[in-house]
């Protein structure tokens, strides 16, 4: 390796560390992303041109074509995707990274016949890369609603764990015996792909973000392992940074939902027990309201808090809610948004969605800061959120979300909940808040209902 390339890798590594650091602060995040991206750019260009290998021209052409094709596809996806689809997108991209690592492993396995110390890294890259690839695709399909039902074989935990142990033994066997047949490595590839599917399929849709974050971390580890194989520092450090950062992020998400990682992976969240637990609570009457009554209520209040959920984004009602908020503010009502840490489909997702429709940064208040404010609040407007305001998290030990920190909207003087119907939320858990005396339900599509509400308010 030329000294120039080594220096380029060194610089790239430093940009990764600095970039990741800057991504953690709102003021510097954008610059951090660009710095890391440019580091990646020079690492890629340096890798292509600064080496001492003799490479025929047509291979350069192939590499150029591959980069051009991939860059255009990636760019188009990135600018076209809707912000509501962000978790799906991260999952898909992540799967591609994993597949890339697995393919590298497959090719290199053919090159190193017999060198055991390299075989360890190659086999690890194949196993981890394939698990990430198939796991991410399943997560992507689930989030897209293509696999709504969580498929659970009987005793799936036992089966999965046994299968995983078998997979590890198989991998160890290949390293141990210095196996050099291509057939055996393709078998390993398939076995690992199957495990990725088995691993993600039983996990509930609501837990997908945690899984994606975990798989993201795994891709980083796969990249780092490939870095060891090539003695390449930028891959090693870049990969490990993602690996450890991803793991921390995974735990942060679990904490926000008051679950352990083991519980996410092995617990049957949203399964039959959950439905049974909530079933007893559905008795009671629901009070309905209409846009004009709701408008009157909000018009004559001093303080309104909006609780946005994913349903708001699905109905594309972010802009309407922003208009509503501006109108109320103009009328002298104090309005803010209560953001639960897992509002949307993953932590911070709701902030992105509201930012997209120009909602003021300062109006988005985190759960811990807004919870004490609910008791001085006249009206809480809950749009498309369910589990994050479910009091069962406080007072029903049998509920699957028991212990999860929630927004204490029931402390407000009155509550308006917009929902399409009485169907339980994403996690499939019934919500007793709907039957609260202070609650009135504004049924209908979020965008339609809010537009009507906005119209009524304008006429006042």
């Amino acid at each position, binding site marked *: 390796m030329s000294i120039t390339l080594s220096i380029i890798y060194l610089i790239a590594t430093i940009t*990764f560390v600095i*970039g*990741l650091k800057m991504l*953690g602060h709102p003021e510097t995040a*954008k610059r951090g*992303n660009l710095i*890391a991206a440019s580091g990646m750019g020079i690492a*890629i260009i340096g*890798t292509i041109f600064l*080496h001492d*290998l003799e490479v025929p021209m047509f*291979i350069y052409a192939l590499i150029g*074509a*591959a980069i051009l094709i*991939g*860059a255009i596809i990636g760019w188009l*996806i*990135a600018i076209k*995707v809707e912000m509501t689809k962000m978790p799906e*997108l*991260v999952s898909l*991209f992540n799967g591609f*990274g994993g597949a*890339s690592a697995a*393919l*590298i492993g*497959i*090719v290199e396995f*053919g090159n190193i016949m017999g060198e*055991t*110390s390299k*075989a*360890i890294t190659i086999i690890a890259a194949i196993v981890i890369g394939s698990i990430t690839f198939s796991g991410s695709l399943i997560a992507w399909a689930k989030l897209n609603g293509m696999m709504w039902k969580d498929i659970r074989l009987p005793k799936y935990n036992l089966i999965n764990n046994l299968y995983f142990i078998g997979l590890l033994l198989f991998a160890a066997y290949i390293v*141990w015996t210095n196996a050099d047949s291509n057939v055996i490595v393709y078998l390993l590839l398939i076995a690992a792909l199957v495990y990725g599917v088995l691993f993600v399929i039983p996990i509930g849709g609501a837990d997908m973000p945690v899984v994606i974050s975990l798989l*993201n971390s795994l891709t980083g580890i*796969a990249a*780092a392992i*490939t870095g*060891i*194989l090539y003695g390449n520092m*930028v*891959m*090693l450090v*870049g990969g*490990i*940074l*993602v*690996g*450890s*950062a*991803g793991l921390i992020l995974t735990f*942060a*998400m679990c904490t926000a939902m008051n679950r352990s990682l083991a519980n996410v992976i092995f617990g049957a969240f949203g399964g039959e027990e959950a439905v049974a637990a909530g079933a007893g609570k559905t008795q009671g009457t629901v009070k309905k309201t209409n846009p004009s009554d709701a408008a009157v209520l909000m018009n004559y209040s001093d303080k309104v808090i909006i609780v946005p959920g994913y349903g708001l984004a699905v109905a594309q009602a972010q802009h309407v809610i922003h208009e509503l908020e501006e109108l109320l503010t103009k009328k002298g009502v104090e309005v803010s948004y209560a*953001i639960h840490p897992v509002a949307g489909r*993953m932590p*911070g997702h709701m902030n992105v969605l509201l*930012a997209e429709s*120009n909602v003021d*940064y300062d109006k*988005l208040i985190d759960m811990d800061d807004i919870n004490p404010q609910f008791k001085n609040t006249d009206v809480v407007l809950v749009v498309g959120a369910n589990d994050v305001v479910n009091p069962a998290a406080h007072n029903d030990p049998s509920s699957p979300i028991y212990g999860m920190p929630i927004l204490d909207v029931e402390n407000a003087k009155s509550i308006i909940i917009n929902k399409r119907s009485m169907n339980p939320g994403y996690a499939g858990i019934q919500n007793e808040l709907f039957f609260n005396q202070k609650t009135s339900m504004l049924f209908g599509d979020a965008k339609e209902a809010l537009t009507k509400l906005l119209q009524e308010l304008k006429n006042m």
Partner: protein
Amino acid sequence: MNQIVEFIDQNLEMIYILILAVFIGVELIKNIPAVLHTPLMSGANALSGVVIVGAILVMLRADPNNFIALALGFIAVVLGIINVVGGFAVTNRMLQMFKKKRK
């Protein structure tokens, strides 16, 4: 056991760096506000696309007559660069929105 000892012996320097990098990663991400979790996840995801460097190496080192290695390497480069370009671009798009209203 021999294989593992040999592996550690040959990659000792790498293992040192690996362990230190784990701690740096943890320190960098600790205490990040939930607001930034989504862009951070997507940015980290783009970073993991660094695996593309390996994919390029596969192609550069491939025997020009080894069609399978070239084809697999080609796919690896395409997938890797999608991860990199798409990941950074979408992160930038998200962060741009935050920036807009902080005037």
